[in-house]
């Protein structure tokens, strides 16, 4: 027996799905429910929010009180993984930036995401300004899938009739917290609209949604939900799909490459078991990639063969190109009106209660695309560092006795300041459209491999003036909202030297565009169904197919497009039958 042996599974699956997040989960769910035999491979361990969520734990149940040491968003956050994974590096071209967040677990990043669920609008699919390429599909073509996702998964919100912020089929939204009422008043005075949030949380029960509990308002969606009251791909798609008996999940399976035959068609994939490091191969009639935009691009580029010398899908040379994240910038402060506020349970829902959809008129602005604003603050559960701002700002307002206090301090007076300032803070963060550019990309690093021997990604991403000017506009807007609501700004106001607080590319964890869809095989990787132009039984269902995302968080569109791709596969199968 040789030392290196690949164990072949003789079974031929109707489809192999790589990745179990929003895209992979939805494709697996649709196909398994239609009776196909589906194999799903997940690089991380099995995860079921019912048993594994840290929901309702107290801060003292963590020795580090929830600090972000082993998990970037803290001990109680549901994401296994982070910006760096042991033995799985990535590199960056000098002078460029990219931060890559990977969650390795069943359900991927959907276990901890913000559940903010916005549809892309007509102008996002078919831009009128000509700045970026149009999608090969229109909003009208995607709308029926958004509608079905709304009904199947559940979303709260309100019908507003805003042209490029399409309404959905909504459950009732949670009411605003006190600081959110002040924010709304201030923002509207500043000319910025505020509407109820749109979140994938069950605020009502629905006859169409079975096996899931309704929200009980602990505000902890980031920890994932034990009663499945919010959307995680694990709880809402993969586990229910397993219950059909048609979906098999192999966890701790890191896919190495897509295998092809002499005709260039996919015949399966090979993977390494991350626990025992044994090599395996499995056969499938279709291969559906939902490994995340960059991981799927990496997999395609690493799937080189005689028929696909540059990797599958890469006859266009575009796999990895057009990588784009959202922009992000933020500002923090506190509301003197909320000092010494009355205590009550203000946890609310774990997704946004309010937000500001984009309102700007680009004919009067020096940047082409907009952003939305998300807001924070309230009487939240104490957590690591939550009062660190107090000794920095307690000198900005008079003390209880009306006299000026010296900033900082200690003792009974400081202890009282902590109580006074608790829940008085406010924050706002912009999430904007970053342009998809061919010049921003990920590629295979020619010299590096990960601990499994798989060549790793090298990133090359730079912000340009369109994003920087947008961030400047965010900061100006934040300041005017803070001013109108009577808040005191406590952040340093970032200037041109720090690109107005613009976060590094990747930091907003909205990366997409690496396997763009299009009608022309020369200028796109996939056709409008998410099917590779040059390998007809390979599909991509994560955010890779996005030609250009709007300022709308990706997940709802990933779900709608993955559903659409899965049903296209079913239609194709019917034609063959």
């Amino acid at each position, binding site marked *: 027996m040789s030392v290196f042996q690949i164990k072949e599974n003789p079974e031929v699956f109707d489809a192999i799905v790589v990745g179990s997040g929003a895209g992979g989960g939805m494709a697996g769910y649709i196909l398994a429910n239609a009776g196909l035999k589906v194999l799903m491979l997940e690089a991380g361990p099995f*995860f079921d929010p019912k*048993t594994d969520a*840290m929901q*309702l*734990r*107290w*801060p*003292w*149940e963590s*020795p*580090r*009180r929830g600090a972000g040491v*082993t*998990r970037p968003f803290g*001990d109680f956050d*549901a994401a*296994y993984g982070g910006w760096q994974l042991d033995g799985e590096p990535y590199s960056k071209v000098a002078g460029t930036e990219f931060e890559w967040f990977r969650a390795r677990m069943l359900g991927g990043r959907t276990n901890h995401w913000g559940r903010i669920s916005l549809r892309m609008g007509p102008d996002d699919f078919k831009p009128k300004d000509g700045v970026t390429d149009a999608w090969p599909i229109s909003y009208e073509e995607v709308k029926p899938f958004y509608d079905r996702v709304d009904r199947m998964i559940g979303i709260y919100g309100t019908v507003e009739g805003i042209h490029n912020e399409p309404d959905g089929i909504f459950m009732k939204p*949670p*009411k*605003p917290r*006190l600081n959110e*009422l*002040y924010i*709304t*008043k201030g923002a509207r005075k500043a000319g910025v609209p505020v509407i*109820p949030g749109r979140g994938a949380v069950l605020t009502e*029960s629905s006859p169409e949604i079975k*096996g899931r*509990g*309704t929200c*009980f308002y*602990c*505000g902890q969606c980031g920890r994932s939900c*034990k*009663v499945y009251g919010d959307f995680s791909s694990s709880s809402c798609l993969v586990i229910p799909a397993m219950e059909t008996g048609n979906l098999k999940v192999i966890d701790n399976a890191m896919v190495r490459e897509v295998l092809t035959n002499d005709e260039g068609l996919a015949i399966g994939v090979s993977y390494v078991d991350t626990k025992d490091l044994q090599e395996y191969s499995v056969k499938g009639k279709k291969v559906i990639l939902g490994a995340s935009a960059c991981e799927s691009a990496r997999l395609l580029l690493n799937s080189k063969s005689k028929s696909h010398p540059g990797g599958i899908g890469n006859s266009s040379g575009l796999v990895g190109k057009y990588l784009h994240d959202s922009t992000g910038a933020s500002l923090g402060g506190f509301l003197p009106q909320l000092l010494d*506020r*009355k205590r*009550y*349970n*203000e*946890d*609310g829902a774990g997704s946004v209660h309010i937000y500001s959809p984009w309102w700007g008129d680009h004919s009067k602005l020096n940047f082409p695309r907009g952003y939305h604003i998300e807001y924070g603050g309230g*009487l*939240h559960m*104490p*957590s690591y*560092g*939550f009062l660190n701002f*107090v*000794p920095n700002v307690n*000198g900005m307002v008079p003390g209880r006795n009306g006299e000026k206090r010296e*900033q*900082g*301090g*200690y*003792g009974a007076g*400081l*202890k009282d300041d902590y*109580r006074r300032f*608790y829940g008085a803070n406010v924050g706002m963060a912009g999430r904007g459209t970053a342009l998809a550019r061919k010049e921003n990309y990920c590629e295979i690093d020619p010299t590096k491999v990960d601990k499994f021997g798989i060549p790793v990604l090298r990133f090359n991403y730079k912000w340009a003036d369109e994003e920087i000017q947008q961030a400047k506009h965010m900061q100006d807007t934040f300041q005017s909202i803070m001013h109108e609501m009577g808040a005191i700004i406590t952040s340093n106001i970032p200037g041109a030297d720090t690109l107005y607080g613009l976060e590094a590319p990747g930091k907003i964890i909205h990366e997409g565009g690496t396997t763009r869809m299009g009608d022309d095989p020369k200028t796109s990787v996939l056709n409008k169904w998410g099917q590779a132009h040059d390998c007809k039984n390979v599909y991509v269902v994560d955010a890779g197919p996005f030609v250009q995302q709007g300022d709308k968080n990706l997940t709802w569109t990933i779900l709608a497009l993955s559903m659409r791709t899965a049903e296209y596969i079913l239609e194709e199968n019917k034609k063959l039958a």
Partner: protein
Amino acid sequence: MNRRDSLKALGLIAAGSGVLAGACKDDKNQGAKQAVEGSSEKLPGVQEFEYKRTEALMAEKFFTEHELATITVLSDIIIPKDDVSGSASEAGVPAFIEFMAKDIQSYQTPLRGGMKWLDVHCQKAYGNAFIKCKKEEQIAVVDEIAYPQKARPEMAQGVAFFSLMRDLTSTGFFTSEMGVKDIGYQGNKPGVWNGVPADVLTSHGFDPNKFFG
């Protein structure tokens, strides 16, 4: 599934009864025990490497007795006992800071070095290490490093050290069971969110009948 079923699924109410308080109380006691003794039991959802890491850190000792005594005195100066709650040390802050220094190694030099700075400063000023100084001497030193804007420039290193100690102390205290109760946090339990209570809305000038007040 309705909200009541959600709570049943959580095990927070027994089927057919409403004894929510009992279940919560048991949970709390377990949590408190764990924070003091370290996690001998791996909680569901905690990854293997996280559990092992925490166990290993718990078994290590970083600060000397003298340093821990210094941390205890300083944390109690920062958060003393008052009418509402106990002191930082009563809430377990020194043990928390000991853990954090092992958990986030970049804290080690600023904390250890900062205490050394403090002792040297006190030795020069009062002929004693900080914890051996009289109470009023300790307070006089703290007064020189607790107010960043009025501190003399030559005290800047002491100010930086004290700021770090103050942040670790406030986290350690207000995330303890005692501190969470003190600050009046009311959540982390199943309920129904119907918006801000009407009396609070009215006192802030908002209309309880309107969604956006």
